[in-house]
């Protein structure tokens, strides 16, 4: 690592979101501007992992001031270097503007999106260069494994994790320490640890962010688990859809090996540990632990009945501990700071923090790590900045395809594993998709069933056939062919599938339907009995788009806006929509200056 002292550091976010918004071009432009002014030895440019505020990307933070610029473009760099770096004047127009007050906010700590966050798992994400192990070590990284290997017995490590109250962050919320105890107690000459990084829940991307932004924290967490349960080999099962995450993890593994943190006789003890990456091949069911292990073994990713649990008989029949990325990422902090300190955050039954992926019809989308026990309202309104385009909140979907939709009167619920189960949702991996008045809840239920149905592996009948039957009914309802008795049939099917499916995928697949039936039954009834979609989302229940000839001023804006050239008409003459070509995208409606297009 170079030892120069820089007067300023510029952090550019290099997460997938910002890469797609063009951060690479921003970086080269910035480096050119710096080189031109001979500032390369004074200002250091660092490409970090994800800052979590992807929508506003590309993001850039200038230290020591901590000034936060968003949506920066290559052509802005000249101004940033000239004004900010040379003259010390903040470039106002690139600052984040608060959507409620309209004020520009210079420091990222003052932005509502970050203000209420409390970071443990994401602590380094966006602050260190993920491809440089020394930056991780400089933040106290690998101290926990040093402490564990030289001062603690494996049982003491397990006890500390148990005492911390840490629960699995990937879905069910099983106590992590207890899981480790089972794997440790299991008899066997060979044991494995696995990290489930097959983040398949639609609407969740926190694991991706950790892999891309701080891969060493995961490696350290896994080494700690391996030491605790007595494993000498491990796998990280990452989905192939995350190419950048795989690349960074690969770099991190190499660096850890070079630095003697993976391999033989770590820290001069007789503990050895090898860690490998396995790429998934695109099957959601592989997020289920037994299916994941079948996939590592080279087979179709189909779940196996439990018991025996993986702790007893896992990968290749050997005792195996399996946790997800965010869970492992919490462990180094627990060992380093102690369980007592860790427990200070969160609620009694759900300690620590949770990362939520905040998406949908909300002003600030991105990743937010908050203490357990926060209310949904704080997350959506204080951190998320409320619903966008001034629309009305309708529901929040939590927990992906296994979770449920909660209505407005549940906004003040404090969030932890148990409170969510009580209201018919679940923590899942922590995806929060916010929906407004334009979202149809029957369509949302259909969407999830369509997903689980196509991802069902087909091994057990309730899931294979049952989800198909439920989907058929929901599809009928959304095209206006619902019948009396459909709701009751859906409920009966749901209960059967829940209680008889082999794995978690099937057992939780009906949850989105049950929760929308519980809170939004009237929308189902409107579709079935009145053939109307109250949200105006189900196309078959709406008429075709038409242009009101009297209102139309012939401005041709709509003909240009139409992506499929379905609108004909000369300037200053009335326009017409070709119903067959129209894909009902609504682009013309948004653009029409005189609101002449209706459905």
């Amino acid at each position, binding site marked *: 690592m170079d030892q120069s002292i820089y007067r300023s550091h510029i952090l550019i976010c290099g997460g997938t979101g910002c890469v797609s918004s063009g951060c690479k071009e921003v970086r080269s432009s910035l480096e050119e501007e710096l080189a031109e002014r001979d500032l390369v030895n004074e200002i250091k440019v660092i490409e970090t992992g994800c800052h979590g505020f992807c929508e506003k990307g590309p993001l850039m933070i200038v230290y020591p001031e901590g000034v936060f610029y968003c949506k920066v473009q290559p052509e802005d760099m000249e101004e940033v270097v000239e004004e900010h770096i040379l003259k010390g004047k903040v470039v106002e127009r690139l600052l984040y503007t608060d959507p409620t007050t309209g004020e520009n906010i210079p420091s990222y700590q003052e932005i509502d999106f970050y203000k209420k966050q409390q970071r443990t798992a994401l602590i380094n994400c966006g602050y260190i260069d993920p491809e440089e192990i020394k930056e991780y070590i400089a933040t106290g990284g690998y101290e926990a494994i040093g402490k564990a290997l030289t001062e603690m017995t494996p049982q003491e490590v397990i006890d500390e994790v148990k005492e911390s109250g840490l629960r699995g962050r990937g879905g069910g919320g099983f106590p992590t320490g207890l899981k480790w105890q089972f794997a440790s107690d299991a008899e066997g000459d060979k044991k494995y640890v696995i990290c489930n990084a097959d983040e398949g829940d639609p609407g969740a991307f926190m694991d991706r962010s950790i892999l891309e932004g701080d891969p060493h924290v995961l490696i350290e967490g896994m080494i700690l688990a391996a030491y605790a349960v007595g494993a000498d080999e491990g796998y990280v099962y990452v989905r192939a859809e995350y190419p950048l995450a795989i690349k960074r993890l690969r770099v991190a593994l190499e660096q850890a090996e070079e630095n003697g943190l993976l391999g033989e006789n770590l820290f001069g003890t007789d503990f050895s540990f090898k860690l490998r990456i396995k790429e998934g091949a695109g099957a959601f069911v592989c997020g289920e632990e037994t299916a994941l292990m079948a996939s590592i073994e080279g087979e179709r*990713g189909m779940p196996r009945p439990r018991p025996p649990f993986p702790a007893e008989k896992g990968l290749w029949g050997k005792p195996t501990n399996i946790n997800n990325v965010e869970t492992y990422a919490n462990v180094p902090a627990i060992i380093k700071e102690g369980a007592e300190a860790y427990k200070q955050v969160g609620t009694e039954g759900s300690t620590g923090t949770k990362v939520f*992926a905040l998406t949908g019809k909300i002003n600030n989308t991105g990743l937010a790590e908050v203490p357990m026990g926060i209310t949904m309202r704080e997350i959506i309104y204080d951190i998320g900045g409320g619903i966008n385009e001034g629309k009305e909140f309708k529901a929040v979907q939590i927990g992906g395809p296994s979770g449920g939709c909660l209505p407005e009167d549940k906004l003040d619920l404090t969030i932890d594993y148990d409170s969510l189960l009580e209201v018919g949702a679940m923590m899942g991996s922590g995806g929060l998709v916010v929906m407004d008045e334009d979202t149809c809840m029957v369509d949302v239920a259909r969407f999830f069933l369509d*997903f689980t149905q196509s991802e069902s592996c087909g091994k057990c009948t309730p899931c294979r056939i049952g989800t198909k039957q439920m989907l058929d009914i929901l599809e009928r309802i959304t095209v206006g062919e619902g019948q009396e008795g459909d709701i009751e049939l859906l409920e009966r099917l749901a209960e059967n599938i829940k209680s008889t499916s082999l794995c978690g995928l099937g057992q939780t697949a009906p949850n989105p339907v049950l929760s929308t039936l519980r809170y939004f039954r009237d929308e189902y009834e409107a579709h079935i009995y009145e053939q109307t979609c109250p949200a105006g989302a189900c196309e078959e229940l709406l008429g075709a788009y038409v242009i009101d000839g009297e209102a139309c001023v012939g401005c041709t804006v709509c003909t240009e806006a139409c992506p499929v050239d379905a609108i004909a008409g000369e300037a200053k003459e009335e326009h017409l929509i070709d119903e067959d070509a129209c894909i009902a995208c609504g682009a013309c409606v948004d653009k029409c200056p005189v609101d002449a297009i209706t459905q």
Partner: protein
Amino acid sequence: MACSCGNAEENQEKYFAPLKKVLENYDKKAKDLIPVLQETQEEYGYLPQEVLEEIAKSLRVPFSQVYGVVTFYSQFHLEPRGENIIRICMGTACHVRGADKVLDTMKEELGIDDGETTEDLKFTLESVACIGACGLAPVIMVNDNTHGLLTPETTVEVLDQYRG
């Protein structure tokens, strides 16, 4: 692989050369099936039947098992694919922000359905489950590049970049 030019053996060897190279890096055990398939598909663009038969032989697994694994995972393809792979995210966040309109626009523009490849082998269109860039919904991936915050109009612009 039918061949009528008289150099069948030589051509055969040439055809299987990339596969041989992939197999060299593995112990030729059943557990390597998925990584072998992944690397082979990188080489050939898809997984032709002759190649799968060779893989079955060298890893000593029944062909039926190879076929079972290939058809189980959505990453594997038995048909040739386009030069550019367009993946339209159908995740929840994209769904509520209009992913279906992006898909419809693509279908219309390319004249193919979901899962199909254009006749000139330029584009393959696929709707996929969440690609984990939900902050930029609705989002698509073209090859390894992510494009976010799309509308039907910008979808066409993105497509034009690859039409070249």
